[in-house]
């Protein structure tokens, strides 16, 4: 393994042991999404009936049926978490998995209640995964019309004030989705849009609704009648057509290209990125009309993309996935683990490290800088996990010196190599590797 493939596996994937060349990673990304086939997650079509059964049971005050539906919902959520980790741990297409987490964060959703706990994972599987090597405009459309997003940003509670249902139920607009669509999903907060643009876009989106059984529907009865003007463009007509046109226009805006290109570079390369690198990725986005495969290629192959010493912290999710890979935990192990084990070894530790799964504090997702993650509480939780979880995962533990080579290759510094050799037990030695600055940065 060369230094280049090691560094690439850490920067663009979930770390060692499998080093890959950037070209190899890009070639896999351009191919089919095998991980999604091998390790399927939950789907809306399975959650829908469970959710409907739960609500019917609640109305009928049938505690037993409600409990049964809740159990099914819990099972779907568990399957989603297992699938996500199985793919991240087992995939030989790690760049795709990293891009999925990037876009899942860009289009953050969070669960509303326990019975819908699987929904954020379902949105990722259905609206994000299929497009990470496709076109941004397609991803945007898929996400904005997915029940997971419509519920999370309250679009399902938004009614055109002049629509039939708005009149009848005396309900009105909810601007939440429209605002975040401009501020977070496309243009970025610094772009030149006004409160009027937000309000007009909110009116334009009023037909987007969620049917408990069918999922996403366009409900003409709640759509605000009449044309709306967003960023100087007037959208008229009925049904989904003007909405889709507005989404396509937002996706094509240069502010969107600049905003997301910068986010990509910040996420993958550096908290304070090289302006030339950002400009180059942005230009590729504009040249290709948001062809994400071309954009990612421009990022990965840029000569400044591999500059060392930029100090990105592995986020807790990356940390646990990378540790699983280094410890040789397999997708089969992940899929065979029961809910209690997943909670104990994955979900509770993620929360303790500051990143509870699918529960970002707001629609702007998780912070990026190393200082946000390497806090006293966050580092304490990482050390706790590093010292205790491996023994619960692998027995016997590997020889720490061999583990150091496997987990970090030539990235291991002299201090770490010395300390690992001096540790008094395999537990401490493996724990030191996983607690180290080298392992916690990418």
């Amino acid at each position: 393994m060369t230094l280049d493939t090691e560094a690439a596996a850490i920067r663009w994937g979930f770390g060692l042991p499998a080093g890959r060349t950037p070209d190899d990673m890009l070639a896999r990304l351009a191919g089919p999404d095998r991980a999604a086939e091998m390790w399927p997650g939950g789907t809306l079509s399975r959650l829908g009936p469970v959710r409907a059964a739960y609500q019917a049971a609640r109305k009928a005050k049938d505690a037993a049926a409600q409990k049964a539906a809740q159990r099914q919902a819990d099972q779907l959520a568990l399957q989603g978490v297992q699938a996500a980790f199985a793919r991240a741990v087992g995939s030989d297409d790690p760049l795709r998995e990293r891009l999925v987490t990037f876009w899942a964060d860009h289009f953050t959703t969070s669960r509303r209640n326990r019975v819908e706990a699987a929904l954020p994972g379902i949105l990722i599987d259905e609206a994000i995964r299929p497009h990470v090597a496709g076109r941004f405009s397609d991803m945007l459309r898929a996400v904005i019309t997915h029940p997971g997003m419509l519920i999370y940003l309250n679009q399902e509670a938004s009614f055109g004030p002049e629509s039939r249902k708005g009149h009848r139920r005396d309900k009105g607009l909810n601007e939440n989705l429209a605002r975040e669509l401009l501020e977070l999903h496309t243009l970025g907060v610094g772009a030149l849009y006004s409160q009027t643009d937000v309000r007009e876009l909110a009116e334009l989106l009023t037909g987007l609704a969620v049917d408990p059984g069918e999922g996403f529907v366009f409900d003409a009865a709640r759509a605000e009648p009449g044309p709306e003007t967003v960023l100087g463009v007037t959208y008229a007509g009925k049904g989904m057509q003007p909405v889709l046109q507005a989404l396509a226009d937002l996706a094509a805006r240069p502010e969107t290209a600049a905003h997301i290109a910068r986010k990509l570079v910040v996420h993958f390369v550096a908290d304070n990125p090289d302006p030339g690198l950002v400009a180059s990725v942005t230009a590729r986005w504009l040249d290709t009309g948001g062809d994400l495969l071309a954009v990612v290629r421009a990022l990965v192959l840029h000569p400044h993309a591999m500059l060392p010493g930029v100090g990105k912290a592995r986020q807790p999710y990356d940390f646990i996935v990378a540790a699983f890979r280094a410890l040789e935990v397999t997708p089969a192990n992940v899929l065979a683990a029961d809910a209690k084990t997943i909670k104990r070894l994955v979900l509770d530790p993620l929360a303790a490290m500051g990143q509870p799964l699918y529960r970002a504090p707001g629609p702007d997702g998780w912070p990026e800088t190393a200082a946000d993650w390497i806090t006293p509480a966050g580092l304490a939780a990482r050390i706790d996990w590093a010292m205790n979880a491996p023994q619960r995962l692998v027995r016997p533990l590997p020889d720490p010196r061999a583990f150091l080579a496997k987990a970090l290759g030539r990235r291991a510094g002299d201090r770490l190599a010395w300390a690992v050799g001096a540790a008094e037990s395999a537990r401490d030695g493996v724990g030191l590797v996983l607690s180290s600055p080298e392992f916690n940065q990418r």
Partner: protein
Amino acid sequence: MDRRVFLKGLGLAGCSAAAHPLLTTLTLAEGGLALGDNRLVVIILRGAMDGLDVIQPRGDAGFATARAGLTSPATDLDGFFALNDGLSGLSPLWQAGQLAFVHATSTPYRDKRSHFDGQDLLEAGTGTDLAPMAQRDGWLNRLLQVIPGAGSETAWAVGREAMPVLAGPARTQSWAPDQDLRLTQAAQALLEHVYHDDPLFRDAASAAFDLAGGAADGKDIDPIVDFAAERLRGTARIAAFSQSGWDTHKGQGGAIQRPLERLQRSILRLQTGLGPEVWGKTVVLAMTEFGRTVRANGSGGTDHGTGGAMLAAGGAVRGGKVFGDWPGLAEADLYDRRDLMPTSDVRDWAAQVLAGLYGLDRAVLEGTVFPGLRMEASPSLIR
């Protein structure tokens, strides 16, 4: 590498077996019949316990010089050796003849002074003719292999840490309490070393150490000891677990107190948990991978050495005595001019104990359990 991955509740048979309330007594009885009534508990002291600080050779003129500024308070045992006051709670056992030590003993491991290799060899119970990593069986497992009809419930590895001393083809059980162990002082010192050059990690860590882990007292060992005692009161005959925290490179006077407290607590709690009758048939051996340097280092601690000490406790022990030939602490008497010279093979003492407890003959002990060992007719540690 053939490693068993166990996400709890799936792979590791012992976990589910231990938690299962319907374990058949039939299998358990097999073990009892095969090994008789005597019990053996092996505690692996990971990190290299400093035998010279635990059993202090106060009668040796070189001791005070070598350990100037490092000698912990201790109480005289026999006019020559004194017991570190961190184990003062064991004095009643000494008085009752149920506590013994072997000094200046070691495995055949020499020179490289690596914890991992040293522990591998201690638990493999072999010589140095094979690379330590090539030994896959532990000596307790080979003991079970030569006992006809030893049932799978005969021997237990207790605790989260893997116990290579019990690993091998003979079936054994394992169980771990559902709790984490605290970061040892040695591990914390190594982390501080690793974080030293990175301001972000260094600063976060200084506050993180106060947050990591559980309570600071030795009580985290209680569930392990209680489980072992419960099994041994029943039909199990052998239990093994480990205790860390002995790697006292720095500030040893304070750093060694916590592992001593934990060791003392384990022995006393085992005694209570087993009850007088079973305790009377029990030998506890606490063994470590090697000793530590005779002279203190520059930071109030000691570094990896060679000859060390072993502790034996239990109603079946012929105690009240420190065993082993004392090599002396004059520079010419040291190993490599720095370490306590080993005068016995720690496996020899263990082999004598196995012979006495389970009636194994010398050929089996030298040929199978501890292959390559030449038993030197050390005085037996047991009654």
